[in-house]
């Protein structure tokens, strides 16, 4: 599937090109499984406060 963005409607305008309507639905707390390399990266991010971009290096 090719995903093509729609053309910007002629009458569309928003300050600095951004308009927020709502936030995303309330998240729920769940337990992640403390297993696998993905979790270890998550634990490092949480405990060491690393950001995603630091993590990608």
């Amino acid at each position, binding site marked *: 599937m090719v*995903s*093509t*963005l729609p053309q910007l409607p002629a009458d569309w305008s928003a300050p600095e090109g951004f*308009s*927020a309507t709502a936030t995303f639905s309330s998240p729920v707390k769940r337990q*992640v499984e*403390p*297993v*696998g*390399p993905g979790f270890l990266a998550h634990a490092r991010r949480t405990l060491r406060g690393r950001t995603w971009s630091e993590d990608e290096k």
Partner: protein
Amino acid sequence: MSGPTVIGLAFGNTTSSIAIEKDGKVELIANQDGDRAIASVISYVGSDEYHGAQAKAQLIRNAKNTVAYFRDFLGVSFDNVDPTNSHASAHPVELNGQASFSLKTEDDDEETGEVKPAKLLSVHEIAVRHLDRLRESAADYIGKAIDGAVIAVPTDYSEERRQAIVAAAKDANLKILQVINEPTAALLAHVSANGDSTDKKYAVIDIGGTRSDGAIIASRGGIFTILTTLHNYELGGKNLDEALVDFFAKDFEKQHKVDPKTEARAVAKLLAESESTKKTLSNTSSANFAVESVAQGYDYSLSINRLRFEVAARSVFTKITQFVEELIKKANLDVLDIDEVLLVGGTSAVPKVATSIASLFDESVTKISAPAFDTKAIQPDELISRGAAIQASLVAGYDDEEINESLQAVVTVAPHTTKSIGVKVGDNEYVEVIASETALPIRKTVTLSTPADATAVLVGVYEGASEIVVTKVEKEEKKDDAEDDESDWSEDEEDEEIRTKVLKPAAKIAELGLQNIPAGSKVEVVLNITRELKLQIAARAGSVAVRGETAVAHVA
């Protein structure tokens, strides 16, 4: 310098297995008998202790002094011990509120003729003996002492039961680095082996010897979250063995006018041969069942084909598919929501188990991972120990404090999205960027195209909602084709219904306008949900970039 020697352990009521990761490869460790699936059985003949298959063989002659199916008794108060599976081996009796077994573990004194009495051995002590033998097998195989192990337990195990297993291991000189959940271990082994880290919703179905366990697990960015679990403590491979015992016992009775089921030893013999016949039928289309001196001195043998077995055990297969249906229902999901079914446990090697479960799903949507469909699939009874071994080598380099720190709720409990978040494309179509049930924080990027001559595009960020679309397809006239005999029985007149699931943009979150972009640009959209639960959105086409963020979301 080489690191510590660590192993992964699967400890089931029926069988146990040991695995180790070496240089990125995981292998199963066989015991001294050459078994990779090691029977979780301990037996005593005088002071001689037997383990594994040798102990299991004692169920025929020495059932009372043989302990089998004991794992689920660990850490459970005696009032809650279900002795059903112990009726053909040592029975659990109470000792200090826990299960124990009355066993004779000493030789009688030949000189004085003194008969040594049986002693009560607690289930803890039995588990220690079992784990000690497993540790010994591993150490013999590797040629080094074992420094630590990761062990897997069912998801319904309380902290008490987990600690009871850790304590038994400790007394067997085996340091447990981490106790993990069985379905997660199996899934880790599976995704590691096929390198599949894509976001998927898995149904992990573990059909063992005495119990069946199911879990729906979301895999998002390499993080696993268990969404729903289901257990059946009366469904497993043992039911298949018993169906075969009934089948052969009836035939035996017809021939000899003796019901072999009235004799415990005859039943034990039939059961052992039934299990081995069942396993043979997983690989070949027919097997020979033969038992010497079943009852009243009569030998018995009969050849059985796979189809005959499948008919004899039909009700068990029905219960297994019902179990899977119930799991999906409990999770409030549709079969179309399941991307992959991972079949785990020894009984998942039975082709009919795999095909019955597969028949619930649409093969174009849901992948079924089992040896019956994929000859390269890992043996289902090896998945758990393999996953535990992978985890063991991941945590081997950390000290206890570091491991415990990462197991705290601040790390393991995370807000998860409840809806899919994505971008509206084309004519009210939707591209998912962050799946529902994704642990936060998360950052995801998607690259989208633009209409050929457009110099300004709209990036609409929405939550997606799934819809099940049912289309009726008129059935083709059935040709009277002799080759078509397999599907003859499904001659319902109704048109076929094709159900498909589609995600559509539903609630709008934000819009970004990108203007003055070169025609034919690619647009990169980054969705970043921060630790503070703000959704930051950035869209960029070449040097044109727009960004913004939503208000903070609140955890429900």
